């Protein structure tokens, strides 16, 4: 019998390796199974609506006609939120990571993280009671002076409960997500790259453009995608703030609806075909989120060669 002294049997380290790799694999599979289960549930429950008589669907013209306006409404609300929250979030994160004195930075970071802990119904109430009335005169001004642009077409809402208000509330809600993640990544920029820029005679802003932003790019995209996920799926705040209606181009009139709010508002009384209609709407939301994430992945992957990871 040959014995190889290099062969080890059952040492503690080996067992640990096996346990850990098993646990990691299990966790990975669990996520996939959960995702698959959700997708299957949505598909099965939604199936009746696709074969139903178009006249029986809400609106009486089939599922596509029903879902299209609220898909657009969802996208508009999320887009407004991101257009506002992305630059502000990145600017705040840069201020905390590279401009503020250390003590102020720590305090500010803490406050931003607290923002993320506020329940969405509170944001909704704030939007309903404070923000919407405050925006009424601004909407009136916009309708009067910029009314020739379709998105500001009047007459403006008298309550301020518009898709634009909803977008602003969503922006406040996704701001902490974008800020915290961006800040963490900005702080991880290698000192080496920052000093390389400074030693060439870069100002602080040029240093940020040359070394911090390129390093943080994939992270910023991920942060924005997470924010987008929340903005697309947010229910309570939109349900409270938005006075719903048909799809209209004007952002400052009552109208429009988002998928999540549509589901939440109608779910309690829904049964039969209406129920599967709402679940199908959920399926559409699920697909939108998936597609958006795939696009983000593709953007990050396209710049892999220059990412600094090699």
């Amino acid at each position, binding site marked *: 019998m040959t014995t190889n002294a290099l062969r080890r049997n059952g040492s503690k380290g080996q067992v640990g390796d096996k346990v850990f790799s098993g646990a990691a694999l299990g966790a990975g599979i669990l996520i996939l199974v959960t995702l698959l289960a959700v997708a299957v549930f949505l598909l099965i429950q939604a199936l009746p609506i696709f074969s139903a008589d178009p006249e029986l669907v809400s609106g009486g013209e089939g599922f596509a006609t029903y879902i299209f306006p609220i898909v657009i409404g969802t996208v508009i609300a999320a887009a407004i939120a991101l257009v506002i929250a992305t630059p502000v979030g990145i600017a705040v994160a840069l201020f905390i990571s590279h401009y503020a004195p250390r003590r102020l930075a720590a305090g500010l970071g803490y406050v931003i993280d607290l923002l993320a802990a506020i329940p969405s119904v509170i944001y909704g109430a704030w939007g309903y009671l404070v923000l919407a009335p405050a925006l009424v005169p601004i909407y009136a001004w916009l309708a009067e002076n910029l009314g020739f642009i379709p998105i500001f077409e009047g007459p403006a809402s008298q309550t301020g409960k518009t898709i634009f208000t909803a977008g602003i509330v969503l922006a406040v809600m996704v701001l902490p997500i974008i800020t915290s993640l961006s800040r963490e990544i900005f702080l991880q920029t290698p000192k080496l790259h920052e000093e390389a820029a400074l030693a060439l005679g870069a*100002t602080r802003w040029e240093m940020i453009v040359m070394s911090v932003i*390129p390093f943080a790019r994939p992270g910023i995209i991920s942060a924005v995608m997470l924010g987008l996920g929340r903005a697309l799926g947010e229910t309570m705040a939109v349900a409270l703030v938005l006075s719903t209606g048909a799809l209209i181009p004007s952002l400052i009139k009552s109208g429009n609806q988002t998928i999540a709010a549509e589901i939440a508002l109608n779910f309690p009384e829904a049964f039969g075909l209406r129920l599967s209609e709402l679940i199908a709407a959920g399926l559409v939301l699920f697909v939108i989120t998936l597609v958006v994430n795939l696009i983000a992945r593709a953007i990050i992957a396209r710049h892999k060669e220059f990412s*600094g990871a090699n």
Partner: protein
Amino acid sequence: MSKRIDVKDLNVYYTNFLAVEDVNIEIEAKSVTAFIGPSGCGKSTFLRTLNRMHEVIPGGRVEGEVLLDGDNLYESGVDPVTVRSQIGMVFQRPNPFPTMSIRDNVLAGVKLNSKKISRSDAEDLVEKSLRGANLWNEVKDRLDKPGSGLSGGQQQRLCIARTIAVKPQVILMDEPCSALDPISTLAIEDLINELKNEFTVVIVTHNMQQAARVSDKTAFFNIAGTGKPGKLIEYAETATIFSNPTVKATEDYVSGRFG
């Protein structure tokens, strides 16, 4: 295109900790000056005060004067950004910008402060700088590839090309070869010999043979013990430092009988 540096009574601090004490040194234009000494003696810290990179570290500050052809770097109203564009720096670990191509790395410093440069001038400058760093022949066919794809020695020469592209008066090098293999080290040393025709070069090195090979003058820094400030012990012609130093500590260090 090179200026001299005179340092007068310079004390270097980290917040309240005195890291380097009372340095006086004159560095000639178009010469290579080497700083040697044991780890932690403050030679890198001191080097970073010569282009105001020391103050990038939180709490970093200095007292005293550093004169570039008579102009004090630390006078109030002097912008560190201007100082650094005149006094370039090459770091211990090669640090090309990973997201930029080789070409953009070379032009990175030139494009700063919203300076515009025409396409043909840019191409000329890229070639001239890369030739100046003895890197042109190795990279001329892949200028659009990322700088991070080069070998360590090539990356370091790319960093030198980037530094000389802005036409500085002085080039500071902080142990530029310590992360490189002997062949790349030789390439950099040859390069330093050429650079001194145009620039004032100051190099920190742990490698005494390297100091002996490349420098005209050598400064020996030492530290009395942990927590004590580093000091400039002796500064003279390199040949003198290595063959006939006046201070016992220098002799012990260069002959390897240190500590």
